[in-house]
């Protein structure tokens, strides 16, 4: 428990606020990596997932790719991409790796959200004369939102923990303190930085939990509460 006290002390010490990477800047860069990666991944994966869910086509490919992507070690990918992109593009390389990490859960959230809409509801919508895009836009997307947000949520949580690895290639994110801490055996610093990351993750999780509730369509929730 001493270590915890030291870690808390580390978080609030003035040295931590100055130094080559002040804590506030580390938090900011850590969050920036997370948010940007998840956003880019969402721009790619959400429309693709909706399309897969709506048409049912390419599902095998999407599932297969997601499975393979999950197996890719992010640590190796970051290093590989830094070498391939060149050292002047470390940020780009790391971001790319995190985007790849974030795509599978978002893709899965998007297509499973659409797929999870009951067939008879989609059928009803088609039967009353909605066009294919109206079915997607007015029925499948709104009813699939909770699962999509769930996908974004797990993507974000994975990325926020994994951005730590960016600290191995440069001075940014809270991972820098951990990498440095490991080399100089400063466990208080390692634990302190880890705690900050956990707090960030919990806050983001909370945000998504609220969002997930907010996007459950009213009628659907009314039914759930009624039970």
């Amino acid at each position: 428990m001493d270590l915890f006290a030291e870690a808390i002390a580390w978080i609030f010490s003035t040295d931590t606020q100055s130094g080559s990477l002040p804590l506030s800047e580390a938090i900011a860069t850590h969050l920036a990596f997370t948010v940007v990666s998840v956003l880019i991944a969402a721009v790619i994966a959400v429309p693709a997932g909706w399309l897969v869910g709506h048409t049912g086509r390419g599902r095998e490919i999407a599932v297969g790719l997601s499975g393979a992507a999950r197996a890719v070690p992010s640590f190796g990918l970051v290093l590989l991409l830094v070498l391939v992109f060149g050292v002047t593009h470390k940020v780009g390389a790391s971001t790319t790796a995190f985007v790849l990490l974030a795509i599978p859960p978002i893709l899965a959230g998007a297509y499973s959200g659409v797929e999870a809409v009951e067939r008879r509801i989609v059928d009803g919508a088609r039967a009353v004369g909605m066009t294919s895009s109206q079915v997607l836009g007015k029925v499948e997307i709104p009813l699939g939102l909770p699962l999509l947000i769930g996908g974004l949520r797990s993507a974000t949580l994975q990325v926020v923990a994994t951005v730590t690895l960016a600290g191995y290639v440069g001075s940014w994110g809270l991972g820098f303190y951990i990498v440095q801490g490991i080399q100089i055996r400063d466990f208080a610093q390692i634990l302190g930085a880890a705690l900050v990351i956990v707090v960030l993750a919990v806050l983001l999780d909370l945000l998504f939990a609220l969002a997930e509730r907010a996007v459950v369509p009213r009628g659907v929730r009314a039914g759930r509460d009624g039970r």
Partner: protein
Amino acid sequence: MIEFRSVTKTYPDGTDAVADFSLVVPAHTTTVLVGSSGSGKTTLLRMINRMVEPTSGSIEIDGEPIAQRDPVRLRRSIGYVLQNGGLLPHHRVIDNVATVLRLEGTPKQEAREKAAEVLDVVGLDRSLAQRYPSQLSGGQQQRVGVARALAADPNILLMDEPFGAVDPIVRAELQAETLRLQQELHKTVVFVTHDIDEAFLLGDQVVILSTGAQVAQVGSPSEIIENPADDFVASFIGTERGARALRTKHTDHGTVLVDGAGRTQGRLVESSS
């Protein structure tokens, strides 16, 4: 009038759901398709609004082949009531009913007013208009389904086992309601069920189907009961057994009708000879 001409449907997986089916559905009457599970009833129904495309053959509405019509516009012009309602869970009752009107471009306010009137027609209290479907009972949901189908005042109404999921008492109520509505509205109704009693109750014309949508018999309920075409029909409607082959029996409370096993099946209310 709807006419099926030698319609065949083979699903991509090779299932022959409908084989060479021909039928004339007269306008302004109720035609009931009845048959056991998998006999192709739903497939036939969905071919009328092009939710399913026939493999061969053609379907005409008032002499015009529907293959030439835009499927989306065709569907908006035909009312369709699904088993379990198939309502949009995230739209309020009033907006569910107004769906087709809105799709057709009717302004929101006007569509809602129209929808509210239709709620009256199907006997739903307007106070339910602001609820979501999940806040209604099964029977109420079915009525909303009917209201939605009627809202744009289509000539044709397709109903696919609309009362299959509700309990018997509500079901009887909805059946009575359907009869009343049809007396008022005179739509061309195609109704699918696997309950022969429901078929005889609601149908002006009853079509008994066996596997592959083979027509076993077509006729009015009386024609079919009085003269079943073959053993299949006879056994399907049950004339040979149980509740449809009755003898009279006199009791203190009047004459009752009993089946072969001596079990009472009904009362003889009056002899018209």
